[in-house]
């Protein structure tokens, strides 16, 4: 239905379908849905859809579908003026109804199962006085709200009344973004996008983007090497193998993406021994891990928001790889080494299990190295490879990764006691206070202070043994230009295409 109307519109560009000279082939992960409400960790929704706001190179929200906005402090009310003359990819006019519809789904639809709904909990009401104005009222001040207005807007006329989770639209999306969806070729393993000639802002230089769905990390590298892909995100080892090669370019982004070992306080072991998490940092040689696993493309981690513009408090870096110190600290905590070289306390061995997802080689390597280093120090961390995390199996933790590349408030739901994403049941009254304050504080400086304090407080009683922040190592063919590394990328190095309209390809 929807996409036939797309296809029927002839490509307003030169060259036949076979001409790949101005087509970017991107080797990405496997995809199942393209819907900004359901799928917040991928490049495609960002290309096809646009939101009221978007992030600029520095990770700050700027206007996109909205032209301007005002904020009323007293009533916590945002009033957005929308751009005029914007059309959906199928030619229908975009209007305030679509915005209202999308935010209604986000805040009111009971059946919607999305990880981001809690970001919009402060929204009280929405109205559209006219076709170009949207008024959104909050219950209290929310410092991160402008960030959350970046979510992509869905076309009401194509999706209303359907089950958002399973509708066919998710595989044949229609948006207002820079690229429009052409075809999802399952049998060929690719998703074809074409630039939106009617885009209201700068129309991209690259005519087509082909997103290949690849299920295997190393295949992405071989595809680059055999000329079947132009751009891919690789792990640092694979990326390194391209560095000597002149026909490729290595583009290394900074990301806010950390890897660490998250401990589950719901399990008995950590309820008893939660005080002994921080000390583990002393037993792990993070620099060595960064050097070996990441080939030096990353930094040792001490705080979850270390690379955030609000974070990076050096005084929170209280641990260092020092087995002597570790032994002393352990003794202080009451741990004694048993005959097998493993610490014991109150008749309990320092043994815990950690589940690790197997498809990412770096995760497995990091887990293995940590386990081996902890073992050498006298702590038995058992690594269990799983294909999908299993939360019911009683593992004591998991090898986690997360990123707060924009507002540090992204951690609110992770660390505040009882918050929606606090699945590890971390609880620290000081952290609760600080994060709540951070969310509802307006001045930037004050917020910065708050979050820096959060860093030190958290470091003393952490729920995650942070290991490293990864670099986002992209590799492209030589002729691809314009990638801008000022932007700090998110989890899984997502966001590389933030300025795709400026890219040029010359194959």
């Amino acid at each position, binding site marked *: 239905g929807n996409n036939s109307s797309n296809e029927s519109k002839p490509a307003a560009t030169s060259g036949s379908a076979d001409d790949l000279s101005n087509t970017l082939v991107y080797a990405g992960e496997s995809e199942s849905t393209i819907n900004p409400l359901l799928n917040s960790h991928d490049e495609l929704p960002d290309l096809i859809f646009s939101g009221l706001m978007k992030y600029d190179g520095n990770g700050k929200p700027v206007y996109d579908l909205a032209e301007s906005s005002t904020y009323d402090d007293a009533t916590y009310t945002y009033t957005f003026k929308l751009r005029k003359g914007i059309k959906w990819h199928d030619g229908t006019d975009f209007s305030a109804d679509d915005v209202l519809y999308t935010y209604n789904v986000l805040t009111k639809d009971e059946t919607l199962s999305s990880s981001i709904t809690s970001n919009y909990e402060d929204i009280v009401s929405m109205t559209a006085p006219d076709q170009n104005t949207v008024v959104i009222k909050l219950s209290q001040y929310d410092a991160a709200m402008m960030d959350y207005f970046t979510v992509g807007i869905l076309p009401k006329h194509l999706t209303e009344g359907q089950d958002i989770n399973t509708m066919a639209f998710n595989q044949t999306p229609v948006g207002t973004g820079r690229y429009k969806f052409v075809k999802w070729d399952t049998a060929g393993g690719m998703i074809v996008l074409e630039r939106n000639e009617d885009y209201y802002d700068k129309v991209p230089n690259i005519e087509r983007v082909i997103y290949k769905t690849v299920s*295997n990390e*190393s295949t992405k*590298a*071989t595809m680059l*090497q055999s000329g079947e892909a132009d751009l891919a995100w690789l792990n640092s*080892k*694979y990326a*390194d*193998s391209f560095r000597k090669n002149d026909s490729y370019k290595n583009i290394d982004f900074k990301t806010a993406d950390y890897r660490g070992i998250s401990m589950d306080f719901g399990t008995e072991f950590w309820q008893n021994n939660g005080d002994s998490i921080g000390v583990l940092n002393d037993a792990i*040689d993070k620099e*060595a*891990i960064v*050097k*070996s*696993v990441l080939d030096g493309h990353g930094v040792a981690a001490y705080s979850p928001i270390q690379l955030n513009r609000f974070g990076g408090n050096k005084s929170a870096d209280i641990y260092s790889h020092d087995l002597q110190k570790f032994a002393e600290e352990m003794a202080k905590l009451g741990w004694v080494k048993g005959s097998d070289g493993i610490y014991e306390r109150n008749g309990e061995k320092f043994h815990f299990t950690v589940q690790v997802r*197997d498809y990412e*080689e770096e995760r*497995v*390597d990091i*887990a*293995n*190295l940590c*386990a*081996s280093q902890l073992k050498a120090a006298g702590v038995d961390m*058992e*690594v*269990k*490879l*799983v*294909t999908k995390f299993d939360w019911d199996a009683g593992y004591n933790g998991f090898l986690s990764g997360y990123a707060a590349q924009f507002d540090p408030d992204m951690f609110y739901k992770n660390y505040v006691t009882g918050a929606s994403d606090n699945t590890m049941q971390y609880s620290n009254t000081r952290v609760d206070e600080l994060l709540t304050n951070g969310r509802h504080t307006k001045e930037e400086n004050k917020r910065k202070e708050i979050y820096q304090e959060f860093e030190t407080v958290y470091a003393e009683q952490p729920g995650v043994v942070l290991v490293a922040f990864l670099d986002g190592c992209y590799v492209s063919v030589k002729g691809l230009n314009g990638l801008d590394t000022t932007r700090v990328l998110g989890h899984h190095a997502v966001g590389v295409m933030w300025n795709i309209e400026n890219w040029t390809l010359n194959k």
Partner: protein
Amino acid sequence: MAKVENSRFRKVGIGWKKVEPVALKPSLKKRLKGKPVFSVIILLFIVTGCLFAGQLANHDPGSFYLQNVNEAPNAEFYFGTDSLGRDIYSMIWYGGRVSISIGLMSMAIISVIGITYGCISGIANAKIDALMMRIAEMANSIPNLLVILLLMAVIGKQDAVTLSFVIGITGWFALARIVRSEVRQIRNSEYVLAARRMGVGFPRIMIRHLIPNFVSSIMFVVVSTISSSMSMESTLSFLGLGLPVDVISWGSMLSLANRALLLDTWWVIIIPGIFLLVTLNCITSLGNFYRKGNTKRHSNL
């Protein structure tokens, strides 16, 4: 002279002289001819190496020598190191221990189940046979992985024995089919009928009459279950259903191949491969030798 002649022509009848055909003692070289001596030696070498892994290994196979990542074979690391600085040489011996025992154990389990099931089905009457074969076919079309997933969860431990058990329990269908058709060929031979008639019980018939008579024709299938079990183990390790990550096997070493390939570290790819191939080939030639010994007839072509 004439007397001698006459005595030679005297009638002596049966058994005058014991006549024995001259038996020649073959030389050692001749006796060893056609026997897989070479394979036996190599196999012994590898097996002993694995048994004495502790003595042979010069590094801890589980340790990460982060200062020596991706080193080519050298005086300290005989077979080089992988991308995390593990010593391939030590891993080979420890890994061989695991892989070979998994291969053999799975083979044993597959053989026991497959042969028993096949014999029962081959000997049973048409209806039961059809039923049993249908069941095997059905079981065969359920993805192994699903069954393994379930079994692993039920058993709840991950060690070599469990793994062999799980691989064995999902791998016997083809063997059962082949055994069944072999049994159907020999089940009406008179020696089976006679034994049955004499009141010999089924287990004894199976062990004494059936198995020895078809074992040579299933030899290759049985031997190749060793290799398929080893590669199943590596696939499972790869999927996280296999052995704990710190237990090394040739399979898990091989599954690093694609990574090593992109990093141009050939020793990580080639060396475990060679060990695996050589071992399996030696086992095969032993099996072949056994098979040959059982079919002495020459081709009529």
